[in-house]
């Protein structure tokens, strides 16, 4: 497109031949977009499956699946050369955010911490530490925001398991801090403002779950771990 014609076009043939080049370019763009949307959907599917890895054991299994996803992202590299990432961001984002949600969930289960921006970017690099594409702050934050919903499911399900009480209250304070941290960034991202409401609701649900446990075990004169053991024994019998 960069060749500078010296004369503007005066015949249908000339016009049609210019549009011919446009067609090639637009078709290429549309095909690339289609491919990316499809890949993004694949990433989403793989990531969602990860959501169900609700226990530590399942989480380490899930590591392999995360690597599968990273391979998919490596495939993006060819498509997203130069600044094409920004061109196709809205097509890639859905899958990318689901991936960040799954990755940060695994990270939390392993370390008890919130994964950093740099860590996420590093997970999206080839062997020579060259990024497949730049990580946008928006995708990073929105992925993390979804994490809080996942943690809510995790905490509520954990309640029926041994050690559920301490798990619920750990998750509770973790999510409470997440919410507070995200708060200062809401003015920058409209989408984050919306998701912050969902986070508040998730937090309240976790609080309610932690409360239900606390109030129940307060009735007994034994430490929570022993109570858990007793319940376990009763179920097995």
């Amino acid at each position, binding site marked *: 497109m960069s060749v500078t014609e010296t004369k503007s076009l005066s015949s249908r043939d000339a016009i049609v031949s210019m549009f011919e080049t446009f067609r090639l370019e637009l078709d290429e763009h549309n095909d690339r977009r289609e491919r990316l949307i499809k890949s993004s959907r694949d990433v989403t599917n793989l990531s969602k499956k990860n959501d*169900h890895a609700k226990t530590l054991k399942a989480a380490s299994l899930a590591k392999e699946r995360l690597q599968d996803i990273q391979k998919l992202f490596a495939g993006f590299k060819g498509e997203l050369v130069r600044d094409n990432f920004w061109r196709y961001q809205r097509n890639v984002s859905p899958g990318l955010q689901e991936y960040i949600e799954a990755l940060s969930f695994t990270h939390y289960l392993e370390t008890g911490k919130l994964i950093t921006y740099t860590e996420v970017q590093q997970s999206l690099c080839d062997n020579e530490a060259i990024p497949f594409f730049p990580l946008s702050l928006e995708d990073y934050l929105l992925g993390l925001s979804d994490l809080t919903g996942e943690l809510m499911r995790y905490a509520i399900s954990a309640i*029926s398991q041994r050690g559920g009480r301490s798990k619920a209250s750990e998750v509770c304070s973790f999510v409470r801090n997440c919410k507070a941290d995200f708060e200062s960034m809401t003015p920058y991202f409209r989408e984050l403002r919306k998701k912050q409401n969902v986070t508040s609701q998730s937090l309240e649900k976790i609080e309610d779950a932690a409360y239900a446990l606390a109030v*129940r075990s307060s009735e*007994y*004169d034994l430490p929570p771990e*022993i109570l858990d053991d*007793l*319940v376990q*024994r*009763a179920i097995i019998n």
Partner: protein
Amino acid sequence: MDPENMQLITRMLEQDSELREKIKDQVTEFDKKTRTMSGLLNKIHSTPSAELPPLLDSVRPILESCGETTAAIAALVPPNQFWRWKEMWSNSLRSAVFAATLMEYLQKGTLMTLGQVSDVLGIKPEWSDRFVLTVEDYLHGLITLVNELSRLAVNSVTLGNFEEPLRISVFVKDLFAGFAMLNLKNDTLRRRYDSLKYDIKKIEEVVYDVSLRKLAPSVRDKKDAS
């Protein structure tokens, strides 16, 4: 316009609207049946286990009579138009699935498969282009079943049956594990599935209460003692 062409068009448009009316009448029938069953099954929450069999016996004939309704609908739907009309009776069908699977659980403690439910409701394999029990409708019925069982866990304790919550807990967790393996895209179904965790939580709380009540010393006991 060619009069024959014209006539054909007019007739087709009119047939559709007549058919809709007829199906609606059958759905109203179907609805009455499922409502009666729900009404009767609601009594399980205040019926001691020993008295369940006669209650279930009173529901069974109604459940079996659903076959007449499904047959009536299948007879109305033109060949190949199942997907065009199914929305009309989906809700009733889901209620029937709920009734059938609840009864099976209460009697045998087991889960009816999609095929078994189809059979009980008299759905014939040869209707495959006119009336089918779809996976979605079956799953919706199962979710309603879990909702009801969490309520039953609470009430069976009130009735003095401390074993039931445990049985329910095992059954529901197994069912939930099945759901967790599905990749649900359908929105309503996904949302309803997501809410199941609250039912499980409730059931677990009952299990917790019941188990500890037997085994752990309460604060009050101490207080009373002091």
